[in-house]
């Protein structure tokens, strides 16, 4: 760092005002005596800086794999014991942070029949922050075709949220977990 700055200040930076022409000569044209030691030193530092620069560019442009590998955010999945196929989607299509919103949970049997009269309880939270949901969402309405309105859903932070549904219907009881990443 120090070396780089020294190089930067005493050599070729074009904004260095009056120093510019003479110093440029020192670095790039004079080839004798004491100056040659300087030349090798500065050349070494220049190469190091070049390397740092190239590495920085490479680092900044490659995708960060740790961030792209996230939880499964699919909106349709089989419930944990395979009893139902569940879909979970915001009723208005978009998710807005900090707003109370309604979502729809759609429940079908594996054969594709609508699941009616299900009792649904909801829990969840942010696994990486170790806290639960800021509201207690509830299934408030059955809209037909296996669709249940889940009201009172609110995501107050960006990040990884989990919503866990316990479903109990005449066909039996099952659970399903949806991940929502904001």
């Amino acid at each position: 760092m120090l070396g780089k700055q020294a190089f930067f200040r005493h050599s070729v930076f074009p904004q260095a005002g009056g120093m510019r022409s003479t110093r440029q000569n020192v670095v790039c044209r004079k080839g004798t005596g004491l100056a040659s030691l300087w030349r090798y030193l500065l050349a070494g530092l220049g190469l190091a800086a070049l390397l740092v620069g190239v590495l920085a560019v490479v680092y900044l442009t490659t995708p960060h794999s740790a961030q792209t590998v996230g939880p499964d955010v699919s909106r349709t999945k089989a419930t944990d014991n395979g009893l139902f196929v569940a879909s979970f989607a915001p009723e208005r299509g978009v998710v807005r942070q900090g707003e109370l919103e309604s979502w729809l949970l759609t429940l079908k049997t594996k054969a594709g029949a609508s699941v009616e009269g299900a009792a649904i309880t909801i829990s969840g939270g942010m696994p990486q922050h170790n806290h639960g949901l800021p509201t207690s969402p509830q299934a408030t309405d059955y809209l037909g075709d296996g669709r249940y309105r889940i009201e009172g859903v609110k995501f107050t932070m960006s990040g990884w949220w989990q919503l866990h549904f316990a479903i109990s219907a005449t066909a039996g009881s099952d659970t399903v977990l949806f991940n929502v990443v904001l």
Partner: protein
Amino acid sequence: MRRLFCFLAMMAVILAGCGKPDFSDAEKKTIASLALNTLPSLKPDTTNRFADVPAAAALGSTLFFDVGMSREGTVSCSTCHKIDRQFQDDLPQAVGVGHTNRRTMPLAGVARDPWFFWDGRRDSLWAQALTPLENPLEQAGNRAAYAHYIKARFGERYERIFGPLPDFSGIPLNASPQGNDAEKAAWNAMSDAQRDAINRVFANIGKAIAAFERSIEPAQTRFDRFALDLVTGAEPKGDAVFSREEILGLKLFLGKANCVTCHNGPRFTDNGFHNTGVPPVPDLPPDRGRVDAVRQVEADPFNCFGAYRDGDAGACGELRFMVKSEPELVRAYKTPSLRGAAGRPPYMHAGQFSSLDEVVAHYAKAAPSVEGTSEIHPLELSDRERAALVAFLKTLSD
């Protein structure tokens, strides 16, 4: 060849060290979401049909500053919520008729909150305003006395906004279900219709004050000018230029220090409740935060489900879907906005910390909570990083 080498070396230096502050796209997105220009316009409050009536706001403003609105004629809302001090009082705990147990909250942007008080024990701005009026440590009055006072002092103004005042014959001078024994007895001796009439005047006082408070909004700061330039790609000018230290502070706020998880959005709050391990003040009564507020807001006759709400119950989602019994409500307090915080120590719900340095030290240490579990995890922060976080917080005040 040598010239080429010189040129490359120069480029490398420029690329590697002396460019503009560089933020990742994710950081830029978050910074944009914190800027004041993303604050949506204030939504109507359907539970208060006078919320946007100018005459109601004008009456509310009069009442907010009127010391006549207290038992002894000595305390008004503005005694604690001082207009030239960001509507707070710089004290660790507020002092009205008596010494309270909590710090006065600043009011900028308060109309956007779903819950009011440090523990959220009220669910609307107008229901909140009724609480200090009858709190024996704050304004220490009672609702019958306030109704008489409104009739005597502001009768005409009131009636132009809210319609006719009730018949006051047979209504005691002092009566309230919240008052002392004599006031409670007087309240219980009133008929249901009389009680309802007084409650209605009382609720309207709250609705007028709330209409006024809706005009108290946060102001633009250096951070907002910086953020706007960063996002639009403009060259920051004048005080919109951040120092290296402020940039480091901002990066820590978004990244390693995780502050933005809770202090998010243009008001720097998630409007939620969290246990952050802030220690209790030794001589104050036990304070368990949100967990005790749940029952209070449910029992409040002026809550969204109550008879004094305007509009329909569709506006009551927050109360309807409120979390009631999780262990994480223990010693959870409302995340305060950080706008203007640097200019108004002390900090936290009972003024526990006297400087931002102490606040940052608290977050770094992350001591466990005396009760319940703190959501804060210890941070390795060098002295330079701590100072940078404080420097950044100050950009939300200038």
